[in-house]
């Protein structure tokens, strides 16, 4: 078996993930390499979910009965765990949403409805990048269409990195918000936050970071990032679906208007008008995803028990190994950085003229789960002149043997369509 420095004890970790024992297609061992789409869930998270429903289920922030108080404590306890996990200065800066898309839409809508100095209107500009997930493109396109603001973006270099050569022309005095991805879900690129934040601060623009592919894989410190908003989702980091996070700086959350109205987010309501609860509740209308928040809290406990710096080291070692092995496959072209430097554990590639759909199908037959398509980042495919890619993405339970299986599988794909 391949031994790489920095690897976690995957034999022990994999015992926590029942699904990894599954066999598919005539007793083939599942090789799950679609972690950038969603991660698998450890027993500890599954147990937390069922324990919540079996023992504590109630609506939060309402009743005075025992269950209501316990459920509220668990839900708010999950907020504390998230705040600590991302080193937020205050727990009140952590807003629970449905997913990262909702978090990003929330920011875009807050800014569309905001008063000066935050207001996005026809005199102002929004800046994104060409490597964004559709969830960090479409909300800003919608905002630009509604307000008349101009949407600008950073292009990409041939080796899959942001082209910041014209940063002073892209981010200008007119820029109100710069929103970009910390780690690309398709290219794997880790972006240089500091350079972008520095320029944004020079012109007084707000900064929103999509950390969906970062929070699961590396230590995340919102204070060190110096961003104004950070969005991520629970299901990619061992948590359940249906729970996302938006972190925002407290004074912004106090000033910015709510987006969704309803129960939970109010202070008083009359038939003429309402006043709102302070953040984070101002942004959490209606019954929240309670069990899902509790599950995310359990996921954070699980990740902390391993250590995010160790998860990062593990994935870096795997990425280095995968880049080396994939480069050996004839006709394989990596779309994105060709080294493991400043790179996350998602690797997209094309294989000769064989369409990714066909690659994925033949890999699936061998039990290997990868993602194929444009990965909700179609502009990236257009930029590199390809219709789609095959993407393998790793997590804390992935092993070098699974990368070997992928490489063998690709050989089989080449023979099949050769």
């Amino acid at each position, binding site marked *: 078996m391949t031994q790489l420095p920095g690897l976690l004890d995957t034999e022990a970790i994999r015992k926590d993930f029942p699904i990894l024992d599954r066999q598919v*297609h*005539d007793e083939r061992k599942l090789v799950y390499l679609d972690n950038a789409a969603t991660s698998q869930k450890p027993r500890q998270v599954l147990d937390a979910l069922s324990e919540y429903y079996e023992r504590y289920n109630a609506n939060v922030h309402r009743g005075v009965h025992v269950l209501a108080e316990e459920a509220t404590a668990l839900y708010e306890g999950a907020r504390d765990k998230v705040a600590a996990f991302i080193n937020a200065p205050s727990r009140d800066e952590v807003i629970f949403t449905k997913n990262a898309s909702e978090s990003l839409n929330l920011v875009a809508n807050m800014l569309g409805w905001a008063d000066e100095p935050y207001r996005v209107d026809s005199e102002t500009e929004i800046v994104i990048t060409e490597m964004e997930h559709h969830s960090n493109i479409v909300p800003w396109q919608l905002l630009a269409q509604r307000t008349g603001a101009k949407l600008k973006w950073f292009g990409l270099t041939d080796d899959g990195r942001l082209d910041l050569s014209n940063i002073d022309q892209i981010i200008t005095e007119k820029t109100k918000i710069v929103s970009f991805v910390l780690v690309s879900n398709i290219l794997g690129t880790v972006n240089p936050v500091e350079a972008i934040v520095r320029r944004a601060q020079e012109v007084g623009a707000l900064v929103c970071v999509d950390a969906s592919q970062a929070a699961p894989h590396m230590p995340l410190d919102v204070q060190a990032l110096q961003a104004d908003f950070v969005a991520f989702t629970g299901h990619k980091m061992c948590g359940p679906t249906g729970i996302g996070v938006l972190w925002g700086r407290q004074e912004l959350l106090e000033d910015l208007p709510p987006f969704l109205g309803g129960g939970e987010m109010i202070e008083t309501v009359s038939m003429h008008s309402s006043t709102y609860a302070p953040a984070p509740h101002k942004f959490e209308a209606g019954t929240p995803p309670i069990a899902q928040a509790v599950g995310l809290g359990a996921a954070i406990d699980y990740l902390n028990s391993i250590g995010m710096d160790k998860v990062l080291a593990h994935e870096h070692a795997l990425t280095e190994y995968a880049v080396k092995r994939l480069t050996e496959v004839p006709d394989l072209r990596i779309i994105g950085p060709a080294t493991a430097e400043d790179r996350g554990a998602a690797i997209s590639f094309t294989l000769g003229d064989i*369409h*990714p*759909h*066909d690659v994925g*199908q*033949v890999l699936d*037959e061998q039990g290997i789960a990868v993602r*194929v*398509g*444009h990965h909700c980042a*179609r502009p990236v*495919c257009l930029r590199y002149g390809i*219709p*789609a890619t095959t993407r393998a993405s790793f997590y804390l339970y992935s092993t070098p043997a699974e990368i070997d299986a992928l490489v063998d599988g690709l050989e089989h794909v080449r023979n*099949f*369509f050769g």
Partner: protein
Amino acid sequence: MKLDSMYQEVILDHYKNPHGRGLRDGDAEVHHVNPTCGDEITLRVKYDGTTIEDVSYEGQGCSISQASASVLNELLVGKELTDARRIQETFLELMQSKGKIEPDDAMEEVLEDAVAFAGVSKYPARVKCALLSWMAWKDATAQALGADAERKTA
């Protein structure tokens, strides 16, 4: 191996040597995409009355979507619209069967090479690939002949 039921020799042949590929003169042109995977096709139809004179196309996509367009061209060019419609409907029925229809002789007579796609119907993610060009043809035909012709031949 189960894969062979999807990737029939006939399909791979059409994929490697497509019939009638390339855009030629037409009465109507449509562009259809499969948003989940990025398969795309631009398709033109040319009619002589209600006879299909040509179906030309250009596109990018997986072997299933490309082979399906090739089979469509081979099957439909030269046919009367009523016959073509019957072929399209039979193909749709087969593709929506979730692998439950075992094509009989009658179906094989209608579909010819297109029966090879029976195995694809077991893979829900790939059914759309197989249907892409057929939906494009239906759309282009409606545009070329107008709603009137559609009703008459329906």
